[in-house]
């Protein structure tokens, strides 16, 4: 009896939390398909339309170029950050160098600095370099933000891999780099995949730096959302349509992570 009660309570709580978390998202999805006149109505009885999606991709909103910017910035950031971080993580995990712990702490400590503190120096620096409003600048900033995080994440995965297989490969004739490529990376693949997606999501959602460092050419999706606050008021239905564009890729990736997150590749290596 007590068991079923606590079970029910647990379920109820889960449902409640889910509602609180999911409600705004669900509302955004609904609004994205509403006509402007229905946007402020609470009724679920409205005539759905795809017009909002057409509108946001045409003049003057041009969401297409923002999608492009976001995709390029996030993809290039992942493509640079993950391989570098994987090598760094491997080194931190395997080499017993003096000062290793301190160095690792130093790298992690960059994560404790509030972004608002460094956004202005970044702005001045890029203005000096004449790189404001470029994707390149955004990629550099995002690299600085995500790389420490990804190093920390991948290190956790590599720490969990026993060293025996690596040593065997070194004796079999592999150089250190070859060992990393042939043995460590395949074994850490699920972890690296997960880290890559995290890295992508972080970059994809990054707002503050993109807002300050871009104006017209390099505007990313989250910043683009702001442009739907106009002098004519907030265009909720368009903002929601753009919001859907931002969230859907993330949803898909989250599903992917969930499926692969816990799967390890180390079974069978050692006794």
């Amino acid at each position: 009896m007590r068991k079923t009660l606590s079970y029910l309570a647990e379920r109820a709580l889960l449902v409640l939390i889910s509602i609180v978390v999911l409600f705004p998202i669900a509302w955004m999805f609904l609004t994205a398909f509403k006509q402007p006149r229905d946007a402020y109505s609470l009724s679920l009885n409205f005539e759905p339309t795809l017009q909002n999606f057409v509108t946001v991709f045409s003049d003057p909103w041009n969401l297409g170029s923002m999608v492009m910017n976001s995709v390029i910035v996030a993809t290039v950031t992942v493509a640079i950050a993950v391989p570098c971080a994987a090598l760094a993580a491997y080194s931190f995990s395997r080499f017993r160098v003096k000062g290793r712990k301190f160095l690792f702490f130093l790298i992690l400590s960059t994560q404790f600095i509030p972004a608002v503190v460094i956004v202005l120096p970044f702005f001045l620096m890029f203005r000096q370099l004449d790189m404001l409003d470029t994707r390149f600048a955004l990629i550099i900033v995002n690299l600085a933000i995500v790389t420490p995080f990804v190093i920390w994440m991948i290190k956790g995965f590599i720490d969990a891999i026993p060293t025996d297989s690596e040593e065997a490969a070194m004796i079999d004739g592999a150089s250190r780099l070859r060992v990393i490529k042939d043995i460590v990376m395949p074994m850490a693949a699920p972890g690296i995949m997960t880290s890559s997606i995290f890295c992508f999501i972080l970059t994809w959602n990054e707002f503050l730096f993109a807002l300050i460092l871009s104006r017209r050419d390099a505007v990313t999706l989250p910043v683009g959302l702001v442009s739907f606050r106009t002098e004519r008021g907030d265009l909720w239905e368009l903002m929601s349509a753009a919001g859907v564009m931002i969230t859907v890729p993330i949803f898909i990736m989250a599903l992917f992570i969930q499926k692969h997150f816990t799967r390890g590749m180390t079974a069978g290596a050692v006794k």
Partner: protein
Amino acid sequence: MAEVRLVDIEKKYGNFLAVPKQSLTIHDGEFLVLLGPSGCGKTTTMRMIAGLEDITSGDIMIKGERINDKPPKDRDIAMVFQNYGLYPHMTVRQNIEYPLKLRGMPKADRKDRVRETAEKVELDALLERRPSELSGGQRQRVALARAIVRTPSIFLMDEPLSNLDAKLRVTMRAELKHLHHELGVTTVYVTHDQMEAMTLANRVAVMREGKIVQLDTPKKIYAEPADLFVAGFIGSPSMNLIDGAVKDGVFRADGVEVPVDLADHDGVVLGIRPEELDITQDPGAAISGKLYALELTGESTLVTLRNGPSSVCARGHADFEADIDSPCHLAPKEGARIHLFDRATGERLL
């Protein structure tokens, strides 16, 4: 083929001395076994030769060249790891093939080599499986196959048969011995099983707490153990070790009286192997007591007798029969070897 020389090598983990300073030369083409109880530093010694462990001090020479700073891949060795170290994301075939691939062997040759080797260790039916789909013994055989697929200058094997069942262990032992005969590759073999050591080795290095206490041929180690530790470690059933004292040229303990050629000495341990004792009816025999247990092993019967705290075992005829608790007498055979050790230091006295 290569000679391996360890010169004054020493290994410390922090403050813990795993292998104290010592030297060891492994001759070209020799099968050397490092034998000792678990935790005595066998794996550590082997890992230093492989280049997987830094040596705290000393030199390692292979073919006369100092290789302290050479990475493992340039030492031309193959190794079987105590806990396998397989590549979990590769099939058995890919595992065995990997060393060949790294050394640049053409694909067609690789295929033949892998098949031959897999047959040797009875893995040919499992080539497409992954390590996680194998039993412990099968994994160990993959590790073995991966080491012997190539002909290196040196084989290092860390308890390569420890997880096989008894029958396969015996066949694999013969297989390894034959392989060594065929290839003549210098081999360092680690085990805690004295039987494996005796059957496989050209020379055995018996280790205790990191130190090699005796290095000699199996025959010599069996016949003339350097100290009490080696005497107790080698042989199955192990040597009878009886506590007593020597006075007026006779070793005495409860029910035991053996004339020996030694000056008076307290705290002496007399050692004699079970196969060098005869069971007699003579009440004046050297060792007397009550029959404690009879164990038929097939080709012989192990006879244990007791007198006070000490028990003595003899290997008798398979047909030997007697009642438990009946009086029993043992006498050293003609020409039997009597070993005497100092109780306190373990040193050999005679």
